């Protein structure tokens, strides 16, 4: 079933709040002579799966690195819950970053720690919980994601899918409001990719997080996406719901869809 068919999730608590969780306005980033982001503007909708797609080298990962302020953009604004963060110092960014969780492409688990310590890390860093309470929370999180049996394994001993689950468990440890997934299905087989998609959707439903998913896996995009933004050579070419995206008149969007083997008819027939 496509996300379009599922419709947007309900959320009474969110209704009273701004439906836009994060706004990007006129974002620019240059590396030497090469301007990767050339005035990017788009919205991230609260409580939904927001998908950022684009060809390789279109600036998706650079975009995400600016969103979470791993890098400082050259110009433009990033507004999270009404607060502009693009010019904040590292110290001022500490509370802002706690709103975010990130699942990296290669999971980025700390390889010197076992799974349990990876997930407990944030709780030890940012809370005053006793070790007994931390243990309860960590094991509950691992259990919810189906990896409790791997609690004392090192990341090197895990499969790709399990690493992703642990990375999600770690990112969720402090119950962030926004969860960013950087190409979560890259390098995974189709079955594991589908499992990861289900995981993203389950996580959003269960914890009510706003998800930003960077992807060029179109099957995955239409399976879980509620709002799709297409980045083309550093500018936003199209943005909207899956239906709006499929109906986009932009020749670049059409070209991207065709190259991905996606047609409007197929998607509306729910056979993505």
């Amino acid at each position, binding site marked *: 079933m496509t996300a379009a068919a599922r419709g947007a999730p309900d959320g009474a608590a969110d209704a009273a709040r701004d439906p836009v969780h994060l706004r990007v306005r006129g974002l620019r980033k240059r590396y030497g002579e090469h301007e990767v982001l050339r005035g990017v503007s788009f919205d991230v909708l609260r409580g939904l799966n927001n998908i950022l797609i684009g060809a390789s080298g279109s600036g998706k990962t650079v975009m995400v*690195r600016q969103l979470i302020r791993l890098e400082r953009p050259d110009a433009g604004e990033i507004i999270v819950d009404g607060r502009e963060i693009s010019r904040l110092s590292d110290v001022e960014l500490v509370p802002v970053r*706690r709103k975010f969780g990130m699942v*990296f*492409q290669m999971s*980025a688990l700390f390889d*010197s720690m076992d799974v349990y310590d990876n997930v407990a890390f944030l709780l030890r860093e940012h809370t005053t919980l006793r070790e007994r309470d931390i243990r309860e929370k960590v094991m509950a999180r691992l259990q919810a994601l189906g990896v409790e049996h791997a609690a004392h394994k090192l990341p090197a001993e895990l499969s790709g899918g399990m690493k992703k689950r642990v990375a999600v468990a770690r990112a969720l440890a402090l119950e962030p409001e926004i969860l960013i997934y950087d190409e979560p299905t890259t390098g995974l087989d189709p079955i594991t990719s589908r499992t990861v998609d289900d995981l993203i959707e389950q996580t959003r439903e269960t914890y009510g997080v706003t998800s930003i998913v960077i992807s060029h896996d179109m099957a995955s995009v239409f399976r879980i996406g509620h709002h799709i933004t297409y980045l083309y050579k550093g500018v936003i070419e199209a943005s909207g719901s899956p239906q709006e995206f499929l109906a986009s008149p932009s020749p670049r969007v059409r070209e991207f869809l065709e190259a991905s083997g996606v047609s409007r008819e197929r998607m509306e027939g729910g056979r993505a």
Partner: protein
Amino acid sequence: MSEASQPAQPTSPPPVAQPRRALPRWLVALGRTAVALPLRFFGEIGMLAGLLGQAIFWGLRPPYRVGLLLAALEFVGVQSLFIVGLTGLFIGMVFGIQLVDGFRQFGAENQAGSVVGMALTRELAPVFASLMVSARAGSAMSTELGSMRVTDQIDALTTMAVNPVQFLVVPRIIAGALMVPLLTMVFNLIGIFGAWLVCVQILGLDPGVFAENVKWYVDARDVTQGLVKAVFFGFTVTLIACRHGFYAQGGAAGVGQATTRAVVQSAVSILVLDYVITSVITGQGGL
């Protein structure tokens, strides 16, 4: 009238652009190197200063991670004890042989103890202990941080609102500055023991004279000079190792290069700093 029927006008040949004489390739390469080397040098100093500034800023801010500091102290200090002790023993023994052999020519072999003591405490102990720490702990730090960088683990720390300089760099630099002086003292003791072993037990010097010479000629200023150097060396070695690992790029090959650069730069920095500090402390040497 057609153009063909016009009489030919005497024309001067059009000016031909003289081809520029290309500079020899070796000269171009030399010029580029002459420009690039100072730029790289000052760029490197800038990177180190930037990282140091961040380390001071974040090191003074809570949270103070005592556990990480203890782990770094154990890694830099305790785990380097064996290799530093072994190096000290053999340096002392070799130095003992050379001094007795050399001084015998003047009938002054009894002075071996005093020279061994001064040389070890002032120079050999801090320099060799730092080189060993650089080779063992510095290279490991550079590799570990480099691997963390290229696998996004350092970015992951940042996204978790944990400053990576505070978490990874600060404890290591403090550990370097604290543990290298302690290792230097260990080097001093084992080095002098090694020299005693050779000079007294093997080459037959009088044990009382050897010990008295060490006590008479080696004073607190010599030891302090060595310890001051050790603080600077330990700090520099760990800062350089962290700088190369922390900013590594280019996958596994990049991590390898970062480690090599860290060890080479550390070794050169120790020797250059040694001259500078010795010159400042003694008031000689032009600085």
